[in-house]
């Protein structure tokens, strides 16, 4: 038994040293109790931002790298949520789309109610070569439409991606803008125009 003392001392030393420790396992219910402690008093209408939907839950569980069968399930489920414009027109006004791509307003608890949401595309993507303030969390989208020869099928794919990124790529980092009603149908059309209109700065 005495032989265990050096081991115990070592364990204690490790515990108290200035080195990061790996986090252990925890059951989901305990995690949710911590989440509730932080967000349990969310104001009316905001609770659903705390609750995970099935896709968020599975993507969290697999840290955005779901096994193929789970990924297939996500894509299949999310595809059913995409609503294409009834008039069949996917390309709106690129100038309005540019404003949406630039705007990071809306949806924050500090925003006045009714604030129109932007898409904040530039937070993560390079788009127009003329805009130097762009983020790098997403792939660059410079010359997006031109590189795709302004193909209408590609425009439809882009509309789908903006509406619900997970309908194309399971556990994509990109928000599901249409699915969550962050952007309206008209706004998504305008963003698609910013990508696909030959006159858009994105394609210059």
């Amino acid at each position, binding site marked *: 038994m005495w032989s265990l003392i050096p081991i115990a001392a070592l364990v*204690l030393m490790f515990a108290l040293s200035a080195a990061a420790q790996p986090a252990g396992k925890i059951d989901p219910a305990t995690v949710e109790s911590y989440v509730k402690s932080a967000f349990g008093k969310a104001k009316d209408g*905001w609770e659903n931002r705390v609750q995970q939907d099935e896709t968020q839950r599975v993507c969290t569980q697999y840290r955005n790298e779901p096994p193929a069968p789970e990924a297939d399930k996500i894509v299949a489920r999310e595809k059913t949520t995409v609503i294409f414009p009834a008039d069949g027109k996917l390309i709106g006004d690129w100038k309005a789309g540019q404003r949406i791509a630039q705007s990071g307003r809306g949806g*924050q608890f500090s925003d006045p109610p009714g604030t129109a949401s932007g898409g904040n595309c530039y937070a993560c993507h390079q788009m127009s070569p003329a805009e130097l303030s762009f983020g790098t969390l997403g792939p660059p989208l410079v010359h997006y439409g031109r590189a795709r020869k302004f193909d209408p099928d590609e425009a439809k794919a882009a509309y789908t991606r903006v509406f619900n990124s997970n309908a194309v790529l399971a556990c994509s980092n990109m928000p599901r803008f249409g699915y969550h009603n962050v952007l309206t149908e008209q706004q998504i059309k305008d963003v698609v125009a910013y990508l696909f209109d030959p006159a858009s700065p994105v394609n210059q």
Partner: protein
Amino acid sequence: MNVHTLLAILVAALLLAPPAALSQAASDDASEREIERYRAMIGDPMANPGYLNVDRGETLWSTARGGRNVSLERCDLGEGPGKLEAAYGKLPRYFADADRVMDLEQRLLWCMDKLQGFDATELLKRPFSSTGRFSEMEDLVAFIANKSNGMKIQPQIAHPKELEALAAGEAIFFRRSGTMDFSCATCHAEDGKRIRLQVLPPLHEPGQQARDTMGSWPTYRVSQSATRTMQHRLWDCYRQMRMPAPDYASDGLTALTLYLMNNAAGGTIQVPSIKR
């Protein structure tokens, strides 16, 4: 007002003046040198408005008040009653008297309640400062954290509740939700990424950027003209994530802070720093 305070105010006024426009034609080197000079200037304690908070925090710490009319000087932040040195780098940690893992702000509220009999209801309504109104919590945190300057971040992860909080913090870091489907990891789990031009430190694993980040809070935010604590940083992250406002001094935020401090283990505390 002492000389230190006066100097800090003067330099604060300089800092808040619009920076000279940098010519786009200027070489990267010149810009970089200018930024380095600016960093050196604001890194000087005599030039950092965050030290105004430190001064006010020192007064608050030693002022007798509350139902029992005592100061906070007997408050135990983990290193023994009244012992401030090296306390900040070991928080959040487990406190047997409360049977909870607490960060500095939770612990201060505990001491206000149990030691001073101080009613923090009003304080908790607006824990962050705003224009023309100081925050006692920001002042106290700046004062106490500053007492650990030059010392290491040493996460205390031994008690079962510390282990649980660490695991919960990690889970929260990776937990996606909300109308943007974001988690902390969306922005802070890869090196070299940016939002617009703002560089994002990876915080999901032990590393120098995690150490530098956690070792530099609380910080004076030039853009907000205020000294902010980690509680405010996380509140602001969740705002940008389009999540509801998280509860101040809640166990969820403390768990997340413990996870971040664990990834910053060994980092050196140098606060209050100055950030954008």
